Structure formats: structure tokens, C-alpha cells
């Protein structure tokens, strides 16, 4: 093995690709070559480095210096200054104080522990970090019910939004004695402001695959599907590649590790429908139908894809599983808070200095995430609101910023963790406009299977549009809350039930914005 004195991690993701990362990587290689540094400095393609709105970024190890917004023209300077003369290029560095203070949570990362550190297209690098040890242990040392038990003990709860205990979900399906069961990965990430699953799949696809394998073993599924939204081209590519590698290494397929366990993993591609994030709608879509949700009960765990028992788990949920099995439930439960163990990946967006993602312990206060990881409000403005949990989330005002981010604490504020998206708005934001945008989103994504959601969203949309255009009346606000309450109580699935949180929180916490449009 070659020894390099420096490693350059270059984040290849949907964001950096649009900034021409490939071209910049090439010129970096050429420049290193020209200076005879190719044997000393290694370039590693990895997933996201976690900074957005910063164009192409690289991190240099062991120096731990991150350069952002690099252009082709900067390359000669970086190579001659940093690698030849050992002097960091200050003008391109990411806020030094900021990065060292928070270290982007690498030390406490679980699902993103490898993201941005390894080459996601190389299974060896994953194995080199201890990857697939959990899978081997699950298959050779543990019985299926022990796996289920371990996950139960860990306290892991679903990261798709509802927070249902994962081990408990598995325990409904595991004991069923039928010929075919399935594990389905919900990778139809569509909650506005959310892209954590994309980053997991782009940055560490094998982590997800290992989670799928362990889950399949636990519940006795010989086939697993990853349902991924059609827009995630890079994820699809990386997953296809990773699955192929896993087969080549005998980690997937027949008689894995010499056992009698067989497993195949397939990809299913979506075609643009937010509602398919609902597990039964996802199953319908997988079967080649319109993505209309099904009635529950029967729950998919008992009767799911092609009528067979089907466990549907979110990407982030499953990405937690390898570490739980490898390190044990107690290790995992030491993260987070009681009742909500482990870590959570957040995407911090909007009017913050450093839009990006972080993985922190469950229970971390919202203020810490926004001020710390997001760098606070940019351009010296004041904080006004945070939409927490995606479009189906809650508009939180300043006074609620100290809420701890975990399923139970948020419930006390009638808020939800949702997908982990945090959209921060400064003093210039108008809640009428924001709520209009949220309602427009749901109006567009309602599947139409049930009339409370299809009609309700349209009526809400007409009302908020009128208010936005200065044609609203104060009683419309009460009608909007009444309608979204009706939708909460009578919509067929979670989509139509979701409107109540944003509508109510926007109107109640920021009523003055609405009244201002009625003058």
C-alpha cells in the first residue's frame, strides 16, 4: 500500500456536480502531476462534505482545512501554496473558527460516519472502516429474533417522520410463516428541505445496503427493494454500483457467508410523487400503479407488497442498524436522550450563514443546531421563524427555539421532528407567503384518492391566495384552521392530515403577518 502524506477529499454530490466539480478535480490532478506531487498527495472522491451554497469544496487531511467555492483558476495557487509551501490559502478557507468549534459532529456521527471520508464507489474502503462486520455478525452469530431484540433494545425509532420503534415494527413481520416476505427501503425522499437520505446514499451507499441486509435477515425476507425517487440520478448510479460490488464480494446473493440465507436487492425508481413517501402508496407505486395509499389495517408488515408481509423502513433508519449490531444496543442507546436514542441528521437551510447538514444526538436544542451548525442568521438579520420538520412541519417562533429536538420534547410544543429539515427565516420573511408556498406544495402533491385532502387543499389554497392578494377576511383564518382540522381528522393518509401543523402554527404564531394583509 502506498503512503501519502496528504489526502484531499473532494465532495461529489448533486450540488458540487452543478458547480463543475469534475472539471476542477481534473485540473487538480494535472496540477499535482505537473509538480510531481501525485505520489504524495492522494485525491479521494467522496460524498458530500456537508457544506452547501459553497460551490466546489475540498478538505485536506491531516490538516483538516476546508476550501470552498474553488474555481479552476484557484488550483495552481492551492497546489503551490498549500502542498508545496505548506501555507493554507486563507481567502478560500471555510470559516476556520466555525469548523473547529463544531467539527461537524464527526466524533458523534453514526449514519454519516464515513460520509465525506471514504470513496463511496469503493467497497474496500467501506470494509476498511469496519463495514459489513455488523452483517457478518448478524448472519453468523445471531438468530433473527436476537437481531430484532437488539434493535428493540437500542431504542431506534423510524427516521421517516413518524418515529415508530423499528424493532417493534420488525417484530410484527418476523414471526409470520409465509413463503415470501420483503424489506422495502423508503428512499423516496420528497419532504421539502430534506436531502439527508440522498447524502447517505451518495456518500456511503454500503452503509444503507448493510442495514437492508440485516433487516432482511431479521424479518426473514429474501428480497429487498430500494424505492428511490427518479430525480436522484447520482444515488441510483452509486447504489447500482454498490449492489453489484456486494454481489461480487459474495455479501449478497445465494448462501451468503456460507449460510443458508439468500438475499437479492433491487432498485425501484419513482417518477415524481411526494405521496409515495407514504409507505402504502410507495408499495402501490412499486407494483406499477398510481401511488394512492391503501387502507391500514392491514398494515404492510402483515400484508404489503404483492400481498406479502413487508417491512418498510426509511434510509436513515436502516443506516443506523449496522452500528447497532456491530457495537451493541447499549452503545447506541448512549447517544441521544431517553425514549429517543441515537443521532439525527438535520438539513439546515434558508437564511443561515452555512446551509448544510449535521448529525447530532437526539435531544440537541434547536438553537444549538441553527446557531452552531448553521452559523446563525446571515447578513446580520434577526431570526423570525423556523419551519421544522419539512413542509408538514411547524413554524416555530423565537420563543420556542430552545426546544430539544427529539420526538417526545417536540410533541410538547405540538411540533414534530418530521424529516429533520430546518428551514430558517429571517425578519424579512412573510408568513403569509411562506404558508402560501406550503399549501401550494400540498395542493400539488395531494393524490386525490380522498376528497377531504383533494378539496381541502384546494379550498385552503384559494383562501390563502386571496389573503396574499389582499382580498382576505379575518374569518378566513378561522376557516383555514377549521378546514385543516377537518382534514386532520378525516383524510385517508398522513398527507392530508399534515396541513394542520403548518396552517395552525403559522396563523397562531404569526397572526400579525396575516392581519397586515387585510388592512
Amino acid at each position, binding site marked *: 500500500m502506498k503512503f501519502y502524506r496528504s489526502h484531499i477529499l473532494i465532495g461529489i454530490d448533486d450540488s458540487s456536480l452543478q458547480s463543475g466539480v469534475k472539471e476542477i478535480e481534473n485540473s487538480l490532478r494535472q496540477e499535482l502531476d505537473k509538480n510531481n506531487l501525485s505520489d504524495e498527495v492522494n485525491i479521494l472522491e467522496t460524498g458530500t462534505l456537508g457544506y452547501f451554497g459553497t460551490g466546489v469544496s475540498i478538505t485536506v487531511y491531516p490538516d483538516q482545512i476546508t476550501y470552498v467555492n474553488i474555481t479552476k483558476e484557484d488550483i495552481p495557487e492551492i497546489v503551490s501554496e498549500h502542498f508545496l509551501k505548506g501555507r493554507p490559502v486563507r481567502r478560500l478557507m471555510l470559516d476556520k473558527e466555525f469548523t473547529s468549534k463544531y467539527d461537524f459532529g464527526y466524533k458523534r456521527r453514526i449514519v454519516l460516519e464515513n460520509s465525506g471520508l471514504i470513496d463511496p464507489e469503493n467497497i474496500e474502503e467501506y470494509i476498511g472502516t469496519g463495514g459489513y462486520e455488523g452483517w457478518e455478525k448478524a448472519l453468523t452469530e445471531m438468530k433473527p429474533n436476537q437481531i430484532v431484540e437488539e434493535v428493540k433494545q437500542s431504542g431506534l425509532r423510524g427516521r421517516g417522520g413518524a418515529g415508530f420503534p423499528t424493532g417493534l415494527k420488525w417484530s410484527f413481520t418476523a414471526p409470520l410463516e409465509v413463503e415470501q416476505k420483503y424489506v422495502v427501503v423508503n428512499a423516496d425522499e420528497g419532504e421539502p*428541505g430534506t436531502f439527508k437520505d440522498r447524502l447517505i446514499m451518495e456518500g456511503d451507499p454500503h452503509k444503507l445496503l448493510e442495514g437492508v441486509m440485516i433487516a432482511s435477515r431479521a424479518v426473514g425476507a429474501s428480497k429487498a427493494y430500494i424505492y428511490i425517487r427518479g430525480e436522484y440520478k447520482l444515488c441510483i448510479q452509486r447504489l447500482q454500483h454498490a449492489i453489484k460490488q456486494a454481489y461480487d464480494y459474495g455479501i449478497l446473493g445465494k448462501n451468503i457467508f456460507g449460510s443458508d440465507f439468500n438475499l437479492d436487492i433491487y432498485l425501484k425508481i*419513482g417518477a415524481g410523487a411526494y405521496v409515495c413517501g407514504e409507505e402504502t402508496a410507495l408499495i402501490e407505486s412499486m407494483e406499477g400503479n398510481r*401511488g394512492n395509499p391503501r387502507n391500514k389495517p392491514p398494515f404492510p408488515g402483515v400484508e404489503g407488497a404483492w400481498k406479502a408481509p413487508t417491512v418498510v423502513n426509511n434510509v436513515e433508519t436502516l443506516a443506523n442498524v449496522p452500528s447497532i449490531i456491530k457495537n451493541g444496543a447499549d452503545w447506541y442507546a448512549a447517544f441521544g436522550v431517553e425514549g429517543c436514542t441515537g443521532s439525527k441528521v438535520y438539513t439546515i*437551510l*434558508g437564511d443561515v450563514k452555512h446551509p448544510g447538514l449535521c448529525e447530532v444526538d437526539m435531544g440537541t436544542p434547536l438553537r444549538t443546531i441553527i446557531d452552531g451548525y448553521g452559523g446563525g442568521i446571515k447578513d446580520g438579520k434577526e431570526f423570525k421563524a423556523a419551519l421544522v420538520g419539512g413542509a408538514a412541519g411547524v413554524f416555530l417562533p423565537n420563543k420556542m427555539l430552545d426546544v430539544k429536538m427529539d420526538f417526545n420534547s417536540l410533541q410538547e410544543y405540538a411540533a414534530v421532528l418530521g424529516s429533520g*429539515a430546518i428551514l430558517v427565516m429571517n425578519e424579512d420573511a412573510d408568513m403569509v407567503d411562506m404558508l402560501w*408556498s406550503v399549501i401550494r406544495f400540498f395542493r400539488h402533491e395531494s393524490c386525490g384518492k380522498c376528497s377531504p385532502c383533494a378539496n381541502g387543499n384546494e379550498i385552503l389554497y384559494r383562501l390563502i391566495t386571496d389573503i396574499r392578494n389582499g382580498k382576505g377576511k379575518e374569518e378566513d383564518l378561522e376557516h383555514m384552521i377549521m378546514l385543516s382540522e377537518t382534514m386532520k381528522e378525516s383524510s385517508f393518509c398522513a398527507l392530508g392530515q399534515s396541513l394542520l401543523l403548518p396552517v395552525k402554527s403559522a396563523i397562531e404564531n404569526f397572526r400579525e403577518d396575516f392581519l397586515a394583509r387585510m388592512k
Partner: protein
Amino acid sequence: MYEKFIKKYAPTKDNLIYILHEIQDNHPQQYVSEEAVQEVSEYLKVSPAHIYGVLTFYTMFSTKPRGKNIIRLCESPPCFLRGSEQILKKLKESLDVKIGETTKDGLFTLELCACLGVCGNAPVMMINEDVYGDLTEKKVEKIINDIKGRQE
């Protein structure tokens, strides 16, 4: 005429969405025609009514001919907050089309879409398979002109 795309997949209904993607991606006008639906219907033994229902459910599919470049501008809250409405206005002006329409030269179709999951770079749009983020009116102008230039 669509046989070579259709027959890449086993004739089971769960491959329908894959097949429709394949047909659309390979059509110069990026849509799924009635004839294609008929062929898929015969191959999968699924009714044209079902396929039409599926086609019109998912926003990535079109049953009408479209331009060479499909612009899908995200209109979800994070992009909205960062100014997607301005970008939309700019796009409409410089392309001289309304939402859902194709430019007269057949080069662009303007569509809106929900969150593309690239919100760190809001506002964002996708043109065919490429994502463009941190959009400003100036940047939009340049992107459009670049594509126009490449077509000539």
C-alpha cells in the same frame, strides 16, 4: 417501434414505471405517446386506461410532446424562500412561455416541480438530468444562452 425499450424488462406490471421512463427518455420529444401506451399495454397485459392513469399521476411523465430541454424549477418552500418566484418570472420572460409550454423553437419546456432535494443550493432547477443551483436572474440568463449556443 418501442419494442427495443419495452422488451428490456420482464413483462410484469411492476416494471411499468421503468418502461415508461425508458420510452420517454428515448423519445426526442420526451413524452409517452398513445402508440407507445398501446404497445406497453399489449406487452404487460395491462389496460391503456391503467397506463394513462399512471402516466398522469407522476410529474416526471408527459403524455404530450415536449421540448428538447425540460426545465423543472423547484417551487417548494425552501426555494420559494430564496427567491424562486423571481426566477420563474425571469424564465417566463426570457423563454416567452407560460408554465407547461414549449418554446416555439422546440428547445425548452418550462415546468414546475416539487423539492428536488438540493435545497442547500436554493433556488434550484433541473434541466434534463442536470441540476443548477444558487440561481440568480443573471445565472439563469447565462444557462439558457449556453444551452442555446450548444444547439447551434
